[in-house]
C-alpha cells in the first residue's frame, strides 16, 4: 500500500467531505432530505471546469465560482419548493438531480455524454486539507450561532419554531444554499482531481451514498460527518472484493440505524477539546453517566 494510493483516497475523502458537510447541515441539522445533491456537485464541477478550461480563470476562484453557481441553483430550487410540505421538497430534489444529469447528458456544447476533459489536475492533498479545514471550521461556527440553533429548531419541531419567531422558510433556504455551495465546491475539487467529468459520475446513487455517510456518522454531528466520510471512503477501498455487496450492506445498515440508533456513530454529539482533555485525564470516569446538571446531549454548549 503506497503513500500515493493512500493520498488518492484522502483526496477522495476531501471532495466527498465537502458534499457530506453540506448534506449534514441540510439533513442532519435542519431535517430536510435531498435526493439530488449530486446535481449540485455536477453544476459546481462543470462551472469550475468551464472557468479553468475556457475562461482562463485560476483554480481557486474557479472553485468558488463553481460553488456559487451551485448555490444559485439551490436558491432557485428552494424558492418554489421550500414553502411546501417536506415531501414536495424531496420529490423535487429527486427530479432536480436527475434533470441536471440529463441536461448535461444532452447538451453537446458541454460535451454531452462524454463530458469535459483536459482540466489541470490541481486538486492536491494540501489543497484538499486546507479547503476541508476551512469548510469544517465555517460549519462549526455557523452551527454554534443563532442561525445554527434556528435550523436545529426547525428540525425538532417546525411549528414550535414558527411560533418562536423563526422564519422557517428563510432558514431552510439558508441551509439549502450553503449545502449547495459546499456540494458545488466539492464538484470543482472532483473535476480538477480526475481531470475530466461526465454526467454519469453524478447519478442519483451518488446522492444517496453521501446521505448514507451523514446518517452513519450521525445526524446532527459535524465530527460524525468527518469520521463517517473517512470510514466509508477507506473501508470500501480495503474491501474491494466485496464491492457488489457494499450498497446492499449500506441499505441494510441505514434501516437498522434508523430503527435502533438513529443518532448514528457519534450520537449527535461533537468532539470537543474539553471532552478530549477530560478523556485523557480519566479514561474510565469519562464514560460514567452524569446526573441532571451536566448530562451530555443535544448540541452541547461551552
Amino acid at each position, binding site marked *: 500500500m503506497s503513500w500515493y494510493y493512500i493520498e488518492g483516497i484522502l483526496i477522495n475523502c476531501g471532495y466527498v467531505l465537502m458534499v457530506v458537510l453540506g448534506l449534514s447541515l441540510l439533513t442532519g441539522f435542519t431535517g430536510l432530505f435531498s435526493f439530488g445533491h449530486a446535481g449540485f456537485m455536477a453544476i459546481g464541477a462543470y462551472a469550475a471546469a468551464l472557468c479553468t478550461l475556457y475562461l482562463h480563470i485560476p483554480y481557486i476562484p474557479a472553485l468558488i465560482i463553481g460553488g456559487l453557481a451551485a448555490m444559485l441553483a439551490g436558491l432557485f430550487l428552494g424558492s418554489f419548493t421550500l414553502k411546501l410540505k417536506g415531501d414536495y421538497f424531496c420529490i423535487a430534489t429527486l427530479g432536480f438531480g436527475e434533470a441536471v444529469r440529463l441536461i448535461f447528458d444532452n447538451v453537446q456544447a458541454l460535451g454531452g455524454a462524454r463530458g469535459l476533459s483536459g482540466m489541470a489536475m490541481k486538486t492536491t492533498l494540501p489543497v484538499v486539507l486546507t479547503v476541508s479545514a476551512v469548510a469544517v471550521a*465555517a460549519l462549526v*461556527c*455557523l452551527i454554534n*450561532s*443563532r*442561525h445554527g*440553533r*434556528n435550523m*436545529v*429548531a426547525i428540525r*425538532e*419541531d417546525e*411549528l*414550535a*419554531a*414558527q*411560533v*418562536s*419567531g*423563526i*422564519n*422557517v422558510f428563510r432558514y431552510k433556504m*439558508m441551509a439549502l444554499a450553503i449545502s449547495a455551495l459546499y456540494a458545488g465546491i466539492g464538484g470543482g475539487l472532483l473535476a480538477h482531481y480526475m481531470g475530466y467529468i461526465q454526467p454519469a459520475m453524478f447519478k442519483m446513487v451518488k446522492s444517496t451514498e453521501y446521505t448514507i455517510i451523514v446518517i452513519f456518522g450521525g445526524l446532527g454531528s459535524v465530527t460524525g460527518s468527518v469520521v463517517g466520510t473517512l470510514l466509508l471512503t477507506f473501508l470500501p477501498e480495503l474491501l474491494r472484493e466485496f464491492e457488489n455487496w457494499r450498497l446492499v450492506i449500506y441499505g441494510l445498515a441505514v434501516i437498522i440505524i434508523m430503527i435502533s440508533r438513529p443518532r448514528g456513530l457519534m450520537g*449527535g454529539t461533537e468532539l470537543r477539546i474539553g471532552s478530549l482533555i477530560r478523556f485523557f485525564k480519566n479514561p474510565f470516569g469519562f464514560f460514567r453517566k452524569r446526573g*441532571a*446538571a*451536566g*448530562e451530555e*446531549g*443535544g*448540541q452541547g*454548549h461551552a
Partner: protein
Amino acid sequence: MHKSDTVVLSLQHVSKHFGGLMAVDDVSFNVHEGEIYGLIGPNGAGKTTIFNLVTGIYGLTGGSISFYGSSLASLKPYQIAGEGITRTFQNIRLFKKLTSYENVLTACHRDADYGVFQTLLRLRVPGKLGKFAAQEAALKEKTEELLRLMGLWEYRDMVASNLPYGLQRKLEIARALALNPKLLLLDEPAAGMNPEETQQLMRLICDIRDRFSLTVLIIEHHMDLIMGVCDHVFVLNFGKPLAEGTPEQGQNNEHVIEAYLGKEEAHAHA
C-alpha cells in the same frame, strides 16, 4: 371594570370553518392590558382553534383579529411572534432532543441580529464586526435569567424530553417568554398538575405578568386556577360564545353550568 383601558387583543366576529365543520362561530371579545383573561369551555369547544387563529397557524374564515389596533390578518406565525404574541401548546411542543438550556437559548434569537459574516469571524471587538461575541453573551445571560426564574436552572443540561411533565410545561413557558412577548397565550398550562403544583403555577403566572408587564390569555379547565387568577373569562361551547364576564359571573351562569355539567345539574344549582 378593567385594569387598563388599552385593548391588547381584539377579536371581532371571528369564525373558522374546516370544510363542513364550524369550529369557531362569531366570537368577539377584547383583552385589556395587564389582564389575565381566561378562555374556558368543554373539550372541543374551539379554544385551541382560537389560539391557532391568533398566532396565525390557521387562517380566518371570517371576522378580524387585531393586536394593539393593528390587524394580524396578513402576518405569518413567525411574524406574529415577532410582534409580541407567544404561546405554549396543549400537547407540549418543546424541542425534544435539545436541553432545557438550548430550548430557551434558541428562542432568544430575536434579541440578536448578527449575520452569517459576523458568525464566521467571531471577533471580540466592539462595534459592528464584533456583534457575535457581545450578543451571544447577552443571549446566554438572558437564558440563565429565565431558567432561574422558572426554577429550571439545575435542569439546564437535561434533555427536554427527559424532564418531568410539570417542568416541561414550565420550560415551554420559559421559551415563550424568551421572545419578549406583550401577550402570552397559555394552553392548559396546569394540565396534569396536582393541586400544590397548580397553586405554584398560579403564583408564577401572576408573578410573570407583573415582572414582564404582560397580558395573559389562558385556556384552562382547572377551575381553581381560573377563579384564583383570571380577571375576566370568556366561555365557549361548540365554537359559539356562551358567556363573558368575571369568573364569579361565569360560575353562576346557568348556561355555563349546563354546558359543563348537563341540564339536571344546572337546575339543581339554580
